[in-house]
């Protein structure tokens, strides 16, 4: 079975986010980069599927400038067989920042099509933008069925059986035909750690660079980027214990809406 895992490189979780000078993006000049967490789980699921099946190929795919190769190498080090890098400029026309979700999904879908994969996995959303769109749009572009919020995948005959996370602790089991695309939720598996042997082997693995298609005009427009304003409000409820309790219940019911 051939599995393509589409991953994204995002700034480290603890990175201090600064708005860029033009006010329409994030200043990435001194950001440290890492693999998007749900994508890391998608990769883990792919590796485990291959290990369980006993054979197959895991191809890791990423679009972005030169720097994303470190994330691709990390994926190769953890066990992916080869990598495809869709090269986009660092900044300006054609860079990721200038493309909308549809355009990025199209870049990735084009690369997947060339691979003729049985299964495409990707994280359910990215840690930086969190739109949660790329995966499903890719499925649409590829014309394959998809499932979102996937925690586990099992091979079932010619197809697969997936476990999806619903709300409030509910799970759903779905059977699907192949080829298919799944967007994977964090936490379904245990991630593996990178090893020295993996890194050394990764150097010998293929990293194919593909030129990205020209950007299409964005369907949306970024008007302004701003940091969320953190507001901290404390209100002391006063009165007798009974009065405080009554006030508290009222607030929880009608303001916070948790009761």
């Amino acid at each position, binding site marked *: 079975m051939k599995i393509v895992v589409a991953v994204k490189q995002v700034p480290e979780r*603890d990175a201090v986010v600064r708005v860029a000078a033009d006010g329409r993006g994030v200043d990435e000049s001194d950001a440290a980069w890492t693999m998007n967490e749900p994508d890391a789980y998608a990769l883990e699921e792919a590796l485990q599927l291959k290990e369980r099946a006993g054979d197959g190929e895991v191809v890791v795919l990423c679009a972005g400038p030169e720097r994303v190769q470190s994330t691709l190498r990390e994926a190769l080090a953890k066990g992916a067989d080869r990598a495809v890098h869709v090269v986009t400029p660092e900044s300006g026309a054609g860079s990721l920042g200038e493309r909308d979700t549809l355009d990025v999904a199209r870049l990735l879908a084009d690369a997947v099509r060339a691979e003729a994969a049985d299964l495409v996995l990707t994280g359910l959303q990215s840690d930086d933008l969190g739109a949660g769109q790329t995966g499903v749009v890719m499925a649409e572009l590829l014309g394959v069925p998809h499932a979102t919020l996937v925690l586990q995948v099992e091979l079932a005959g010619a197809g697969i059986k997936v476990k999806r996370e619903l709300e409030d602790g509910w799970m759903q089991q779905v059977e699907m035909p192949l080829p298919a695309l799944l967007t994977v939720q964090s936490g379904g598996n245990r991630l593996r*750690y*990178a*090893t020295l042997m993996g890194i050394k082997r990764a150097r010998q693995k293929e990293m194919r660079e593909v030129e990205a298609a020209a950007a299409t005009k964005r369907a949306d427009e970024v008007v302004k980027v701003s940091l969320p304003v953190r507001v901290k409000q404390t209100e002391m409820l006063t009165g007798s214990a009974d009065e405080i309790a009554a006030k508290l219940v009222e607030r929880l019911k009608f303001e916070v809406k948790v009761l």
Partner: protein
Amino acid sequence: MRLLWWRSMGSAEAGEMAGVLGVLRVGITLAEPMSFSVAEKLLLAALMAASAGVFAWRLGPMARNVWGAKKDTDFSLRPVGKRVWKFVWEVLCQAKVIRQRPLPGLAHAFVFWGFLAFALVSLNHIAVGFGCGFLQYAGGFGTFYVGYAAVWALLVAVSISGLFVRRFVVRPKWLGEKVSMESGVIAGLIFALMATYLAALFVADGSGEALGLWWVHTLVLLAFLPIIPGTKHLHLVLSPLTVFLKRPEFSQLPKLEGDEDFGLVAGKDLTRLIALQAYSCVECGRCTEHCPAANTGKVLNPKEIVLGVRSYLNAEGPGSEVALLDGSVKALSMEAAFACTTCGACEFQCPVGVQHLPVLIGLRRGAVNTGAWEDRFGTKLFLALEKQGNSLGMSTMERDKFIAKQEFPVFDGSQEYCLWLGCMGSYDPKGREIVSDFARVMRALGTGFGVLKKEKCTGDPARRLGNDLLFGELAEQGLKAFEAAGVKKIVTICPHCVRTIATDWLEYGVAPEIEHHSEFMARHAHLLPKQTGANIVYHDPCYLGRYREVYDEPRAVVATAGELVEAERSRERSFCCGAGGGLAFLGEESGERVSHVRAQELMATGAETIGTACPFCNSMFRDALGAVGGETPPQLLDIAQLAARGLAAETAAKQ
């Protein structure tokens, strides 16, 4: 040979000797056979050739296993002076053997020194067989030497009998469940050698008895040689060499070379030094006696690890591709390798130069660098170090908040010291208290310090667990951070950070000078207020004591804060808290908890306060005292907290 009292004088030499001795006039002659026939000489030569032949035949495969093993790429005879000194102290003086186990140690030393004294006697003995004995005819010296050797013979005979009784009657448990029969045979042979020598002092020169004794002595000598290889007595031949050649530093881990070196994966990775050390093991069990894992019911037994490597070499050979861990040798298990706290008591104790840590950590390197080790907690630790850069897996923002709250100045090059917080000092509540108190001490002493804006783990747990990729990345980033900040001197509360930065980082570059806060405070101990009252028992952290040989400095600080008392095991014999080697981050222990055993030992001193000098020890004892501390557990304070307490009291008194 005769021992003549007063009336009958033997030779002229004996007369001189007697004259020297004055009142106790002793004439002493070693009875030798008159002469040997050609047939006897031929027989002797044949027996000697057979003895040497069997010896070589039995030693051959082992020598080939050592020589055929991988070369130690980092080996260098330098520093020669240090090596010679270790050889003199540990081999010739038998200092370690005696110091760590005085009674059997002394008995062993007598046997060893007796052997040295007997070298000349044995040479003479064989020479006599060929008709060219020399000792008797060497004038006063010869007579003196015969008597001198007799004294040693007595000491050896008594000592070896004592050791025999200890091994086969007393049977200390660390000698193992079975004691090898050969060692009984060897003890018997040694006793026979001494007995025949002494007996020859009481029979007539040239008599039939003299001939009989000579042959018995010769046969014992020639039987002794072939038994040596293949038994623990090989240490007679190998250990002087092993002690001289061992790696000069404590827990010295070799650099991985090339693209196919991941640590000790299979036989092909075992080096000559490891093989030599494995064959030198004398099975005395000192390593196991002091091992915190072996003493609390874990599967790890350091002696069995060394013997396991030997069995592996004998079975698979040094070039083998067969996995070392969880393969044909039962003692070499993944579980055992990862039960080690890297406290180093084994390596410190070993009298024959076996260095356990490079083997145990080498096995872990082999397992982790290839991804063979799967452990939920281990993986969690590695991912936390990969992502958050600290072993506690906390957001680095938490450190920023802590620094801001404590108003620690950021290091800008103007301060004398960079205060390194470490993971515990940055994120652990108790570690933070210790760092804050140490900062108070520095402020009170007027020492300028600053902290780095960002800090990542030194890589200590990754290093000890064998994750070279992660350790290397953290070391490189750490070196860069110090260089960028222009740091010249570092001080920290954590002995693990000190060791890793000062020693382990050397593979990647030279870090600025670093010291432990105990060393800093000991230099200023005279400025710290003198507190009276409480008894304080000080616990030596492994990474400060055995790893850095810092024993007196923390005690000097403790002495300013109260009455210092010592635990049953202290200084270089200190018992681990259970946290080292990354084990603080791995899950539940099997058997008894190491920290509980040590906490109980510290409480047994009756001290009101336990003084620590490592945030990991402190954290382990905090939990242990909660579990086994009883109603009124002793107070648990780092030496920095002890010093800060005095300063606070002084300030309060002034007001």
